[in-house]
């Protein structure tokens, strides 16, 4: 059942990803992206990452993508229907490059050990989930072992906010 659901979500995710790349209008691209994000959140749930699935939807789909949508509308790019793919030889070579990458990754994956079902980490995560709840399980290491990276991330966000405001603010004269 889980594996079947996983394949469903994976199919949606891959299809939507392709949609992101080939959609004509940015809004279409964006909606495909939201679909892909939701499908990936589904795979997260199947892999026992409930909290991340929720955050994926809240933050990625609900905030970051809305920001994209907002910018697309602000710049009024949505209604252009022309395709802006790089044409001709470049696209072919790029496709070749992507294919080569896919091939290499496939080789790499084939060479790696096959893990049946879920691994050792899943048990630890399940135990932590049972003890602290799905949020507590990820919050505990985040606020103890990884508290310094966590704080640094906070600073990064602050810097990003300041940077974004400074960049997007119009000069006084205009």
């Amino acid at each position, binding site marked *: 059942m889980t594996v079947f659901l996983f394949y469903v979500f994976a199919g949606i995710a891959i299809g939507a990803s392709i949609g992101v790349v080939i959609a004509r*209008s940015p*809004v279409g691209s964006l*909606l495909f992206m*939201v679909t892909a994000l939701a499908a990936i959140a589904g795979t997260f749930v199947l892999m026992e990452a*409930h*909290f991340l*699935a*929720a*955050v994926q*939807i*809240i933050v990625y*789909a*609900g*905030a970051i993508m*809305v920001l994209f*949508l*907002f910018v697309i*509308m*602000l710049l009024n790019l*949505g*209604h252009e229907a022309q395709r802006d793919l790089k044409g001709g030889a470049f696209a072919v070579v790029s496709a070749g490059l992507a294919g080569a990458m896919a091939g290499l990754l496939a080789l790499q994956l084939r060479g790696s050990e096959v893990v049946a079902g879920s691994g050792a980490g899943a048990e630890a995560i399940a135990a932590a*989930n049972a003890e602290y*709840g*799905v*949020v*507590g399980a990820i919050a505990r290491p985040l606020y103890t072992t990884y508290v310094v990276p966590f704080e640094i991330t906070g600073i990064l966000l602050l810097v990003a906010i300041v940077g974004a405001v400074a960049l997007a603010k119009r000069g006084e004269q205009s």
Partner: protein
Amino acid sequence: MEPISGIWAYVAMSLKATGIFTVVILVVAYTTLAERRVSAWIQDRRGPNRVGPFGLLQPIADGIKNILKEETLPATASRFFFVLAPILVLVPSMVTFAVIPIAAPLPTPAGVVDMVIADLPIGILYVLAFSSLAVYGVVLGGWASNNKYAFLGGMRASAQMVSYEVALGLSLITVLMMAGNVTLTEIVWQQQQLGMWFAFPLSLAFILFVISAFAETNRLPFDMAEAESELVTGYHTEYSAMKFSAFMISEFGHMVTSSALMATLFLGGWDLPGTWDDAHWYQGQLIAGFAADGSVILANPAWWKTLLTFAGFAAKTGFFLVVYIWVRWTLPRFRYDQVMSLGWKVMLPTALAYVMLIAGTILVLDEIGVPWGFGYGLALTAVSGMATFAFMFALDRGRTITGAAAQRGQRVEVKTTPTATARAGS
């Protein structure tokens, strides 16, 4: 008392889902009627009273009308997104109810049934996730109409919803700190254990949450997106028939779910004050609480308790619905810049400061060893009360929600000229 399992669990699940969804739809339908009746009452007129006794069949008539109406599609609209938008709006407003516990567990011969469709481990995050998705429908609807009023409405709605989502989430954090978990059943349980609804120890969070919820549902005084006097009717200007109806249903659906959510988070959910028929799953047992020596007291569920608690839950939710309608006909609409400055300059910092205050108070109370109970709640209530008072006292003070002219420091002179009545009198 074992939880229900096996094939009966699926049966119970299906019944719950169908039943709750049906009830929610019915409530939505009759809320539209209630709104019209209450508004009529407030405005001292009769309201719809022709279809059925007291107009009770009015929602059904409206539904039939909307289904039978002609669907219009503007020529310049983006067809796909134009159709997609009402769906995107409707779905999140309905599915949110799935995690809200509506009554005490019901004992059946096959086992105890939780009165919640899905007690997800991520609980409240699920609600946040879907409410954050609701914005897409509004924005797309406005944009796909290719109409400047609709577009402006959509933009305003998205900005407003994104802004107030922040304050909403931050005011929720205090609740989560108190509950120690994110599942809604746990939040209800902790209020029972505290012997006090969170509305008292977290009074400021309650106020912030209510304000944010009003903004999130695009209801007056925050109905920027529609603002019929400025934008015709905002993002659904170009919609008609059932697609328009979908927008309306989703708005009332949002009202119902957010009312239920407020009741659950701050008014103890299905808990009846003064009763001790609490129930919570604890290590595979349904317990009513802990004895002084730490041993568990088993709960004693009964079908009449489920019914009574459901009635309590319905009453609380209904109360908030009435408040929604009441506020609509009481307060005037904000201006757009006022909405934004209230959200970012008042709500957000207040919620942040309040989180720190509550976290500090909890830390202090835990450090000095106050046990989780009524005394704990009273101490927090005192602190929160002071914070709330300070917030109320300091709110606005003539800076945020005043007229634009006053904000720029201009002097507004009111010229007194002889009015029509004065002239008529002379």
